[in-house]
């Protein structure tokens, strides 16, 4: 099933490219258009502050393509073929999640490369790189299962692309772009507690050497929480279609 997803991705690269291009473009916009102005708000080069948070945009954007893929499978009939075969029906979902993980790693890698090219200078030991990559993968995995649930409840692929929108907005409403203490009250509280902020702080801490504090634990908790919710939700919805 995973092979199926990878083959689809190769066959239909425009979707994948748009998923990766958009965040990279945003990276460039923020770095160059806003970078100078924002340097006053952050210490050092803005790109160093920006890059780790932008890496998290990739999993968020991938949620949209994943939800669409799931919705396409369930509404176009192929899921009925899988259900009447002696295979685990959830393997269809797992194949998509696996494909998303692969794309997430590739996308994040591409993003990191672009960031390096425009001046990002991370400061991390190999073990910290591994930890960051692992955390990113875990986050992608958790968000993927939420996206699977969204795809399963969508009546058609078009509406499936809209459901993950809140998640795509979240990176902007956190510490990915600017420190949260410059935000107005209300928004600041929201930004501090939403999942992307501790994730950003942890990854930035790992890759740039800034302080992580309690963010790591919070980030992990979010990953596990979202992952469990997403998985259980998806399994429930998928099974409910029986009879």
């Amino acid at each position: 099933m995973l092979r199926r997803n990878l083959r689809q991705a190769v066959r239909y690269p425009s979707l994948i490219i748009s998923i990766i291009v958009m965040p990279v473009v945003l990276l460039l916009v923020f770095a160059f258009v806003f970078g100078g102005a924002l340097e006053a708000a952050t210490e050092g080069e803005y790109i160093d502050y920006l890059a780790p948070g932008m890496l998290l945009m990739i999993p968020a954007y991938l949620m949209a393509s994943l939800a669409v893929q799931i919705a396409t499978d369930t509404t176009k009939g192929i899921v009925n073929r899988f259900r009447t075969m002696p295979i685990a029906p959830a393997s269809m979902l797992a194949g998509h999640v696996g494909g998303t993980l692969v794309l997430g790693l590739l996308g994040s890698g591409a993003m990191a490369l672009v960031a390096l090219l425009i001046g990002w200078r991370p400061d991390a030991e190999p073990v910290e790189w591994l930890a960051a990559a692992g955390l990113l993968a875990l986050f992608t995995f958790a968000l993927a299962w939420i996206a699977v649930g969204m795809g399963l409840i969508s009546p058609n692929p078009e509406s499936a692309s809209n459901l993950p929108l809140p998640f795509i907005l979240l990176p902007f409403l956190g510490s990915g772009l600017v420190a949260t203490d410059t935000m107005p009250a209300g928004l600041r509280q929201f930004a501090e507690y939403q999942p992307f902020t501790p994730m950003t702080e942890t990854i930035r801490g790992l890759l740039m050497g800034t302080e992580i504090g309690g963010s790591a634990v919070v980030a992990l908790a979010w990953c596990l929480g979202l992952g469990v919710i997403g998985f259980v939700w998806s399994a429930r919805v998928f099974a409910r279609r029986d009879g």
Partner: protein
Amino acid sequence: MSDTTTGSAITVRGLRKSYGERRVLDGIDLTVGRGDIFALLGPNGAGKTTTVQILTTLRRADAGEITICGHDVASAADRVRELIGVTGQFAAVDGLLTGRENLRLVADLLHLPKTRATRLVDELLARFDLAAAADRVAGGYSGGMTRRLDLAMTLVGGPRVLFLDEPTTGLDPRSRRAVWQTIAELVADTGVTVFLTTQYLEEADQLADRIAVLDGGRIVAEGTAEELKRLVPGHHIRLEFADRSDLHAAAAGLPGSRVVDEGDRPALAVPGDGGVRALRAVLDDLDRAGVEATALAVRTPTLDDVFLTLTGHPAAPTTATADKEIAR
């Protein structure tokens, strides 16, 4: 009674299914022998697709015993899935992969050894006339080609029982005949059992050894095509009249005729083969009776006729009929 000893491919006893308040299937009994072609005939909404879904483990019945080759669909679902192949109205192919890749996907999912899988894929592509388009993306296939690919994918696992849910709905006549031929050849070559649902009497007639007519969740008739058609007026000439007095005068003058009253269009059905001699005889009889018909048509039995006979109501208000209007 153990079904493995009777050797039937499909056994259904007392199948019931409701969606909320709506009773869709109300006590269905069926038996299909191995190697038979069985057709479930009925209009839209009769419960055909639900029946197939339950038989193929996609849905659970509310009540009833259903076995496929001796295995119960509720308790031995995976064993059943190893034995069946299912094609539905909407072709279950992956539009982003090529035909060959689609077939290969199914083979891989069923863990077929690589060399055998490759050979099987090539055989199926050839058999279903898809070899030329094998390496094109399936999303670009025509309707007929997509159906053929769908059927080919279903056969990868070598199923013993094939379920075809309205296999030719929406296809042009040529594609339909091609599908019928493929199915007939398949059964002749491999001895697979076929359970198909259809709303076309002609399809059931062409393909099936036995037909069951489904209406409102119940089987209202079952038998061979010949047996069913004997219940129904065969080829006949249909005459319409201006009013009922004309109708009755004509009925008196035409022996063997039957009043077929469809709403406010009083009509008479006169048995006959619709050939020129029979037509002339009918017109002569009408002349002698001193009555004029307002319309005349030659009819072959349609699903409507079957339903009218068996259930007293037409299959559906908008079902197309096979009228060949000759004169008005």
